[in-house]
């Protein structure tokens, strides 16, 4: 098999990895906001439930969570699994797992905004939602950017975990090629894909950080 054929196959796999990455961000970034707010809720039972959720998501392997979400519909509800089930379970598992991590990062950002600014907004007559959207949130974005960068880069590499459940993303393809071609080259190509993509992620994050560099507290 020629190098270019391997490259084509790995590119196809990479597009699947990219989809996992994008769907996870699209779902987990907003879901994390809801989780963070619930984690800081004034209603104690809501706080407890969310603490347990975060604890399980962070305390067990994502790989096991994928299996649990994949098999739960069958074992708990008796629903027949379809060929799409693996893909759906992967996306759901990634979103709920990453939302837990994002939520804790958001919480650290939210709690770092000085109380005095929120009081100033209150005295000026801003509604709570206005204070959150116009005063708190823009500052939180700047403060959490480095921590979010870590998580986003980890997510790029974590997409390879979908291999364990049988989703044909790039790592699965690479492993199959290594076995069939008796060559380590597919692994090297996959590594290059991950690294180049993360390098682009770093450039984007750097640009956003620079854009928000016009002020400091």
């Amino acid at each position: 098999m020629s190098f270019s054929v391997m490259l084509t196959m790995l590119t196809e796999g990479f597009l699947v990895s990219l989809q996992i990455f994008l769907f996870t961000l699209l779902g987990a970034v907003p879901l994390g906001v809801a989780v963070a707010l619930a984690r800081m809720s004034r209603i104690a039972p809501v706080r407890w439930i969310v603490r347990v959720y975060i604890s399980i998501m962070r305390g067990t392997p994502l790989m096991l969570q994928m299996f649990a979400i994949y098999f739960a519909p069958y074992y708990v509800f008796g629903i027949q699994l379809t060929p799409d089930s693996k893909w759906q379970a992967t996306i759901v598992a990634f979103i709920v797992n990453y939302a837990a991590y994002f939520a804790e990062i958001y919480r650290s950002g939210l709690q770092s905004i000085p109380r005095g600014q929120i009081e100033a907004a209150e005295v000026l007559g801003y509604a709570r939602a206005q204070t959150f959207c116009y005063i708190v949130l823009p500052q939180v974005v700047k403060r959490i950017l480095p921590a979010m960068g870590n998580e986003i880069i980890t997510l790029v590499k974590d997409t390879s975990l979908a291999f364990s459940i049988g989703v044909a993303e790039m790592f699965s393809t690479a492993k199959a090629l290594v076995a069939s071609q008796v060559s380590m080259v597919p692994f090297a190509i996959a590594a290059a894909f991950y690294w180049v993509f993360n390098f682009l992620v770093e450039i984007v994050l750097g640009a956003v950080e620079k854009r928000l560099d016009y002020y400091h507290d």
Partner: protein
Amino acid sequence: MTEYVMSLAGARKAFGANEVLRGVTLEVSPGEVVAIIGPSGGGKSTLLRCATLLETLDGGSLAFGDLTVAHDEAGRTVYAKGDALKAARSRFGLVFQNYNLFPHRTVLQNIADAPRRVQKRDRAEAEREARELIAKMGLAGCEDKVPCQLSGGQQQRVSIARALALHPEVLFFDEPTSALDPELTAEVLRVIKSLAAEHMTMVIVTHEMSFAREVADRVVFLDGGQIVEEGPAEQVIDRPREARTKAFLSRLAD
């Protein structure tokens, strides 16, 4: 009742077992400048925080003009509904000790944003008025700077402009110069004096006795959660009658 811009009657507030306000009555007439002095822990800041709805009273009543915010029912304060509180917030402004400007917004945005978003005023009109206030505060040229590019004195003047932009009937100051060195203190005090000359109604918690004497129509000495002595500035500061006032002022003079 309605002749006062703000009236606080029999205000009581405790944090746990610590009674911070023990029946304080303070009425402010239109155009009056009231200075509140007293030792730390005497209840000055809590008084301002209760008057500006940042804290809730345990007992007593609070009104801004004809608008009753809270009334006393058998020794317990009962607050009005959200709409009344919202209406009350448009009647007063508060200047904090540490300015509490929004660091991610420019000077112009800090001042013009609340008139637009809270009072739903036209953007161009809000910005035009904000520019006027900026000039009046001696900050012309700073419109597009962010707070971190300004000195403490400039930041405090922005925060005064931010409060004035909403056309409050009374402006509260919580130790507005405590975070500033003497030179910067002077420029902030100059601005407050010019507001007093325009008959802006103000309640100022301060440690600057000479300033209080100069600008205030009335000085209130607050200690142990109660008003110990009040009266014209010269009288309270220069010829205090109460022993506690004398002791406090002589400690400051040392």
